[in-house]
């Protein structure tokens, strides 16, 4: 029997040579006459250990990493294919403390299974949730999801069950499930890793959503910068159709549900749910006014569930294990787990899925081991480019929706980006405005004009021009953008700006003093 060796195919890992490592292992095994079977799994998410090669042994999967092509020869010499010791040995994968400490629900299978093997998927608990959902009434599914406390992981944190209930209750000849996979926040990558590493979970979640609300069609809107995820997902959809899961007769139930993918329009704002609908409809990705809510008047004017990848990918576990198991985790109204993504200037970046309530300190310093540069941490931006910059004094904040809000921040999509003390926070504030200026859909005035004016005004502050007046003007502008913008893009852009001005005011007065 051949030996099973896992080399991740995740795009992030491929970017640091995983494909070459896999080729080298294959070539070396052939040379040595060792029969192996390479599985291209997703990533376990410990990016600082990637490329992490795993070997299946009688004791379990044994990990080596980070592996480069030049290590392959010595790995064979060390009989790594038998689990042999090597300087890159990490021991049993599940015992790696960084991973062992986590509580993986949504990401339970990512990195573990062959992403496109339905057999592997089912061996690891796949389709249990869907099979259960098929035995339930629509109402029961929605109730299960509502009771689990699952909230939208895209950033808004709106209870998924309530949204589903609205769509379920709205009469229509056609309804849609739209998965928002336009993961555009800087420092976030969980959606992509899940779609590359465990695409069937997303399809299962969408199918359950379809059964729950009475929709027969799902659309995954996936950003154009994710060609690998797009290809993997499309392949998964094909396999699911061939398997009799997607299509006119879901697992023989007589009920219909199918999914298609739609490549994004290449604009950040297309991740805003209504702009995404416009884009799917083939129009410019421009934000719609709400009301009407998409749950009532969504894609092509039909009732539509719009959920993020992580939200939908969590649903199978809730159906499989029950609402109670899920809501036993977390704190307060933030129940269950959150898939945090550690990035920026951090020593040990990657995916940390854990129950809500972990502190930012634990994420940055324990999991992350501080900055990669080794300089002290100065600021952490949580929740993407529109999230607040938190100072070191705020690191003890509990990572849940409510606590972050109280701390002047927001959880967003769970991105955590670390900056060391070399950062210029005025420059970061300016970047927030510039990002908005580049990505604004251009519909509402505060965002369309305000972002450019904001960047110009911060530049004046940085140059020491009428600093006090311009700071006042900038704060006035932030109010107009916050209160006046049509969507969260313009409405939240002031968040990083104001937080930078509040916590790092010295960076805005530098020139004035000089």
């Amino acid at each position, binding site marked *: 029997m051949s030996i099973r060796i896992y080399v991740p195919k995740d795009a992030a890992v491929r970017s640091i040579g995983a494909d070459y490592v896999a080729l080298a292992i294959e070539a070396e095994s052939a040379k040595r006459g060792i029969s192996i079977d390479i599985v291209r799994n997703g990533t376990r998410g410990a990016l600082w250990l990637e490329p992490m090669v795993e070997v299946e042994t009688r004791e379990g999967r044994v990990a080596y990493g980070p592996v480069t092509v030049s290590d392959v020869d010595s790995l064979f010499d060390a009989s790594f294919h038998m689990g042999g010791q090597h300087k890159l040995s990490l021991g049993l994968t599940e015992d790696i403390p960084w991973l062992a400490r986590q509580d993986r629900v949504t990401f339970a299978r990512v990195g573990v299974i062959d992403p496109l093997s339905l057999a592997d998927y089912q061996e690891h608990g796949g389709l249990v949730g869907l099979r259960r959902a098929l035995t339930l009434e629509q109402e029961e599914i929605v109730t299960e999801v509502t009771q689990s406390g699952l909230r939208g992981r895209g950033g808004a944190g709106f209870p998924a069950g309530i949204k589903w209930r609205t769509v379920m209750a709205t009469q229509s000849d056609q309804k849609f499930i739209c998965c928002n996979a336009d993961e555009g926040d800087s420092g976030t990558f969980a959606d992509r890793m899940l779609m590359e590493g465990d695409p069937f979970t997303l399809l299962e979640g969408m199918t359950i959503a379809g059964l729950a609300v009475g929709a027969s069609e799902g659309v995954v809107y996936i950003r154009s910068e994710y060609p690998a995820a797009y290809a993997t997902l499309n392949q998964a959809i094909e396999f699911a159709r061939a398997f009799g899961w997607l299509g006119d007769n879901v697992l023989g139930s007589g009920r219909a549900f199918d999914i298609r993918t739609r490549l994004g329009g290449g*604009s950040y*704002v297309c991740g805003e749910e209504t702009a995404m609908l416009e884009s799917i409809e083939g129009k*410019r990705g*421009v934000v719609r*006014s*709400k*009301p009407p809510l998409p749950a009532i008047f969504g894609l092509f004017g039909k009732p539509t569930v719009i959920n993020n990848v992580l939200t939908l990918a969590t649903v199978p576990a809730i159906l499989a294990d029950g609402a109670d198991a899920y809501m036993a985790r977390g704190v307060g109204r933030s129940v269950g787990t959150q898939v945090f993504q550690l990035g920026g200037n951090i020593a040990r970046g990657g995916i940390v899925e854990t129950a809500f309530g972990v502190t930012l300190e634990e994420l940055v310093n324990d999991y992350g081991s501080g900055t990669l540069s080794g300089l002290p941490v100065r600021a952490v931006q949580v929740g993407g480019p529109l999230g607040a910059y938190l100072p070191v004094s705020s690191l003890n904040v509990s990572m849940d929706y409510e606590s972050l809000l109280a701390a002047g921040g927001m959880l967003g999509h769970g991105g955590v980006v670390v900056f060391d003390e070399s950062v210029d926070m005025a420059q970061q504030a300016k970047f927030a405005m510039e990002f*908005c*200026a*580049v*990505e*604004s*859909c*251009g*519909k*509402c*005035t*505060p*965002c*369309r*004009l*305000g*972002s*450019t*004016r904001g960047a*110009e*005004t911060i530049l004046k502050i940085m140059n020491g021009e009428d600093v006090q*007046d311009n700071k006042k*003007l900038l704060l*006035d*502008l932030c*109010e*107009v953008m916050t*209160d*006046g*913008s*049509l969507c969260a893009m313009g409405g939240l852009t002031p968040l990083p700006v104001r937080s930078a001005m509040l916590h790092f005011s010295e960076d805005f007065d530098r020139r004035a003093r000089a």
Partner: protein
Amino acid sequence: MTLLIEPDYGTPAGKSQDIVEIEIDGVSVSIPSDTSIMRASALAGISIPKLCATDSLNAFGSCRLCVVEIDGRNGTPSSCTTPVSDGMKISTKSERLDRIRQGVMELYMSDHPEKCAAGDECEMHGMAKTVGLKEVRYEGQSHLDLPKDETNPYFTFDSTECIVCNRCVRACDEVQGTFALTIENRGFESRVSSSGTSFIESECVSCGACVQACPTGALTEKTLYTIGTPTRSVITTCAYCGVGCSFKAEMRGDELVRMVPYKQGGANEGHSCVKGRFAWGYATHADRITTPMIREKVTDPWKAVSWEHAIEYSSTKLKAIQSQYGIDSIGGITSSRCTNEEVFVVQKMIRAAFGNNNVDTCARVCHSPTGYGLSQTFGTSAGTQDFESVEHSDVVLLIGANPTAAHPVFASRLKQALRKGTKLIVVDPRQIELVRTPHIEATYHLQLLPGTNVAIINAMAHVIAEEGLIDREFVNARCDLDSFARWEEFISLPENSPEALEALTRVPAEDVRKAARLYATVPNAAIYYGLGVTEHSQGSTMVMGIANLAMATGNIGRKGVGVNPLRGQNNVQGSCDMGSFPHELPGYRHISNPKTREIFEIQWKTVLNAKPGMRIPNMFDSAISNEFKGIYIQGEDIAQSDPNISHVHAALRSMELVIVQDLFLNETSKFAHVFLPGTSFLEKDGTFTNAERRINRVRPVMASKTGKSEWEVTCDLATAMGYEMGYENSSQIMDEIAATTPTFSGVSFAKLDELGSIQWPCNAEHPEGTPVMHVDHFVRGEGRFMVTPYVPTDEKATRKFPLLLTTGRILSQYNVGAQTRRTANVVWHSEDILDIHESDAELRGIEDGSWVKLSSRVGETIMKARITDQVPAGVVYTTFHFPESGANVITTDFSDWATNCPEYKVTAVDIAPSIKGPQGIREHVSLGDVELESIIRMANQIAANVPTNTAPEHAVAHHIEQFWTPYMQERLMKEVDRAALSPIVIKALELDLNHVPS
């Protein structure tokens, strides 16, 4: 009157029945639950600042000026996009809201000119003041150096003033439905764009909706700069097509600055097209003739004379002709471009002063079959619906009409309905725009061969009968059951099946079946049709076939259904209503009816001739036979617009006195001896009646350039002829119409001013008019089914003339082009073009854009070819807007069997490349006794088509008696060789024509 500023409530009216109570700034308001806070506030007299909202467009929520605070809700939602809900308490004013509004305006003004070229036309500086903005603190990049787009002849796009509110883009989408405009780029670089090219090169149809929607000076009529800001408005009615749009003529002194569509206009509700909105410059064109002119011979130069002299000259000549050639030797033609009042006095002059019934109208050549066909079946000569009705239709069956070109404002309404889910069936030889255009696709396009209309409508009816889709409940309750039984038997004959007719129509039988099922099975299906139905040898038969289909499926008498002719000219409905036909007095009452005559005889203090007069083609034939010698032509260029032009020219040359009343010298005036200058619609005081039977006021915005109203001239001529005629004003004429015509009895200028417009019938039963007709019963009592056998036209493709020519109109030009050719509209269309399919072109070695010679059995002309797939192989198409191209040199004098409406839509032609170009076009001269030939052809055609199962000779005799002059009847009986007549005609002649039971 001062400048009329129409209120703008910001968002469209709510339609919900659910009324909620809300409180805005402490004021209680009851309002439909689907109303926006903005509109509710405006209705309560509370004005909320806004820039991106206007009540002709759906709420958009982009400017963020209209933010409000709602008790119990977070944030500051935009009032335009937030609907009211019961118990809602709203504050529209607070310091916080002031700060947001000032902040937004500060941003706007940081990228806006300090001084706007368009002055107060741009709302920005005024709005800055309104929200209390004191200074603009920002400095930075701007768009103030962008170039202007002046390529459109009528308006300018100045991007420097643009605030990217999207109102223009949305108007192009939601009002016009063309999608010519978009926003390019995003963020700060978002700019309005005519889709990446200049306005003139874009898809823009120049309807003006964007200009009207623009709150700034970014999109502005050029006249606003050249003439100045308007100071007063006059509400009036467009004088182009039969849609009858209401406009505000905005004036500066006596100069017209712009025509702005009027939101309260019943037909257009604030929309317009390139013609009505912009192409009015002809009214003051240098070519206008404003002085009467006369000449002895048509080869003499014109001599300007006084009005008195011109009237004296004309009346003396007319009287001399009558004394020499008889009372019937003169006649007149009324114009569908003139007001009801002007038309009424012309027909009155002919009947009372000329003493005969030789009056006809240009409707003869367009919708006369509609009048005949709908009278026979429903009992009235008009469409059944208002335009708004189409918004309630589940299916629209569009036959032989191209609304996006010919009735653009109705087309926009139709497009919006189609986008909301109404399904469309198109019956047309051409692939008209509505077959497939952005966001619209016809469910079925039955692309039939020209001339096979009746076959198609019969096939559809056959399917409905065969497949049990007849609405028997409706038929039993509302229709004449004998006629129905006869019709059902006829229509069920196998020869009427789609399969049997497929070879003739070229439409796959299965498509006909599917289309018929779709039409018959939805709750509300409506038929709209145009001249593609009427201008055929079986035009009247087709109209009756349409009426049959509507009755059989119960699609009559409520919103969303009906039979709707799209009338070509502004007042073609009115000119017909006003008694312009030789056999009918106003209100479609036959001249032979003594009771009707008595009403007019008393009113007019004269005795009327009981016999029908001559139709236009009869007048021509008779002129060539030297019997008809003098004609008064009110505003119609028959020498360009009528078929077989050589024949028309010959007829005009034969006359001793041709009087033309028109704005410009035209093709007809080349044959005239008297030219009486007419008035443009901007000078007229009266009414037009549109295709919905809507009587709209036409108000003078400037003094008559000739010093007289047209009706005054007509009255002067009648008086000079010896019949005293005169009115103090046109209101008195309408009073006379009301006094003599039951369907108009409730109409007066005072009531029109009060109600805005009235759809006739307007009488004691319907004091405010009738939007939908035949609601409880048909006007004639029971709806009558007519048997409609398909009789192929004699105009057939042959080896010599293998192609079929069909003609039509395009968007920017109008009919003979007398007006539109004298406007900047020529930038879009400066010559008539022959559309030809690639395969036909290839066969003949014709290249795109090359000169081709087009010939039929009656004439030839030369024009440029365009290779297109809008026409199928075997069919070619052109317009007739330019005299140089002379499309009507080619068309024949074949006509509808019942009404003599010309068969413009089918002419067998051939086409060959022409190296020489537009030189040396030969004129064909008619030879022989053309009048007698016409009489024979018409009689045989009636016999072939008259819809009856029993004793067809009675029907033929009756038809001839109803519509032919005594002189024609006499020639038929006495001079025609019987061998040339069909057996039914011969049998009919054996009956006593004067005593046939009808």
